[in-house]
């Protein structure tokens, strides 16, 4: 039985208010943490083994420790831009338990020595931003945010900053530019945000779920928290399951349980008579896995070993009624739309991938286009400032590799349908020598 930590009491009416949150033990962790030294809090975070829940899975404690010491202006930015297709877990937390996030920010900022913090929330989350604003007003009033919090000497300002619709602003450096009032173009790294981030100052950037887990870690103790999950993937994780399942929704799981248990056990699996054709384990940026991979443990390393990634914990299930080309085209179109256009491999690669997929669909492609398309993906990966291009290249590359026959079939069918005749598929004959 999975321990329910983040989703405990989640549907209790009024949990979004300070009154109810405090009655359920809210801000006790902040009290406890602010009575320790920042180093002691950091030690707890490191002991917990918590890995970032936004997509990259970087150790949170380590990230905090990268910030330089000393009394310079340091910033904490909460990445609430949640735009990875299939991901909707942070939305649930911000809407229903906004104080949990605020408490996490207070504690993390104390450990990092940051005095100014921002929640960058995507503009589409109107209701969630309103909930955060209301909770923030309560927290300020009660002295959990502001000057000399709970007499600890730690001061923190917090601003809820609303974005205006751009996937790339979920990329941490794109987010920083956007927060500075610019177009959300990613920056060259290094320097990393821990050294030079917002307004050129040291900046800690964490995902909503990561920060919302901090109060739990302080309450349980880092050691105790690290007993949950697997050796390298500690704790519980919110998983958003969507697509062809009977019960799409957010589920809190202990990392390392079989993927089948999530897709079939919790989310009910595909409709009767249908089977899983493929599934994205970590948002639409993750390489797809197949039916045979359903028994893999759902954790960071098992997903990586299988050639994919846990990403944001968004499982998208595609059943056998769906042509694989439709999936590829949807994914590619999204990244084409969202590419900021700064780096050529991404800007051109996403565009040409869409064009080639459309050619396959309208019957003007030949099987050679599959080769070209696969090579375009290879040339995007690792060649841009940020990973947006990779985020298309990885799933498209995996779809081509795993469903090549279906692509070829699609090309032939579409050509015949359009009266173009079958493409030449037989290899060019070897020259004969006397």
């Amino acid at each position: 039985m999975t321990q329910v930590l983040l989703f405990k009491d989640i549907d209790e009416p009024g949990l979004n208010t300070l009154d109810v949150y405090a009655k359920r033990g809210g801000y006790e962790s902040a009290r406890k943490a602010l009575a320790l030294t920042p180093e002691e809090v950091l030690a707890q975070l490191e002991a917990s083994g918590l890995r970032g829940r936004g997509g990259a899975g970087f150790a949170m404690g380590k990230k905090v420790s990268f910030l330089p010491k000393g009394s310079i202006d340091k910033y904490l930015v909460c990445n609430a831009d949640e735009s990875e297709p299939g991901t909707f877990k942070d939305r649930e937390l911000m809407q229903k338990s906004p104080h949990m996030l605020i408490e996490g920010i207070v504690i993390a900022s104390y450990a990092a020595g940051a005095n100014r913090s921002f929640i960058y929330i995507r503009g589409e989350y109107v209701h969630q931003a309103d909930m955060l604003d209301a909770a923030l007003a309560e927290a300020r009033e009660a002295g959990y945010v502001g000057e000399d919090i709970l007499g600890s000497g730690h001061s923190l300002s917090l601003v809820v900053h609303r974005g205006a619709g751009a996937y790339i602003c979920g990329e941490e450096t794109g987010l920083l530019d956007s927060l500075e009032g610019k177009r959300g173009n990613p920056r060259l790294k290094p320097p990393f945000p821990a050294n030079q981030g917002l307004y050129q100052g040291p900046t800690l950037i964490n995902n909503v779920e990561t920060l919302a887990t901090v109060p739990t870690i302080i309450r349980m103790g880092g050691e105790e928290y690290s007993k949950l999950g697997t050796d390298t993937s500690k704790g519980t994780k919110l998983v958003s399951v969507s697509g062809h399942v009977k019960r799409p929704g957010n589920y809190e799981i202990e990392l390392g349980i079989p993927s089948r248990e999530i897709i079939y056990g919790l989310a009910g699996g595909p409709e009767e008579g249908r089977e899983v054709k493929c599934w994205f384990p970590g948002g639409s940026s993750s390489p797809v896995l197949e039916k045979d991979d359903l028994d893999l443990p759902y954790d960071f390393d098992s997903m990586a070993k299988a050639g994919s990634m846990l990403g944001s914990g968004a499982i998208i299930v595609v059943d056998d009624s769906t042509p694989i080309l439709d999936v590829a085209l949807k994914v590619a179109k999204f990244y084409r739309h969202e590419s900021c256009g700064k780096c050529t491999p991404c800007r051109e690669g996403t565009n040409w991938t869409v064009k080639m997929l459309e050619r396959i669909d309208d019957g003007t492609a030949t099987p050679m286009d599959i080769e070209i398309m696969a090579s375009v993906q290879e040339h995007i990966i690792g060649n841009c400032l940020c990973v947006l291009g990779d985020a298309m290249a990885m799933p498209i590359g995996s779809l081509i590799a795993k469903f090549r026959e279906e692509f070829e079939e699609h090309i032939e069918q579409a050509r015949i349908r359009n009266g173009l005749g079958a493409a030449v598929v037989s290899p060019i004959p070897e020259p004969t020598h006397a």
Partner: protein
Amino acid sequence: MSTPQQIEVPSKLREEIEAHMALYPDSRSAALPALEAAQRVHGWCSPEAIEQTAAVMGVMPAYLAAVATFYDMLETEPVGKHSVYVCTNISCSLRGADALHRAVCDTAGEDPEFNVRSFECLGACDIAPMASVDGVFVGPLSLDDVPRLLDDVRAGRPVLPDKQLSTRKVADPNANTHDFPTHPAEGSTA
């Protein structure tokens, strides 16, 4: 060209922009909330809206125009007053979002009140297929919901109160079973 001092800005808008500017160590950070506020007043990021925002913020209008074109929610052309964003990304399209989007377009027709758009993932795949109507998330939507959705907006009523995301429980195992909507095969990638 008039100087920033000569540009008249509605006093409420000026106050709102200045309040945003005061929240940040660098007032330029207020660009997005300021443009959003100006868009609310002018209906879109018109040259006038951008000029007024620039005058208050003390930046060049061209700078803000460049910012506005980057973001999907900042409109750089005149649009209908009520936004209906239909999510047509992967999870929603697997559950019939493309058919839904077509139905919303057809039903709204040429009504200038509406700004109907197909939108990238709105982060509500649990209620797929869904739409954001003036910022309110509703779903799962069937094609039959479309006329009622538009009527609610026209009449100024809360939109589809029984389908609003804000009332949905996380831990309700039956939350989505009642309405497994349009057959997935219906959604094409057009």
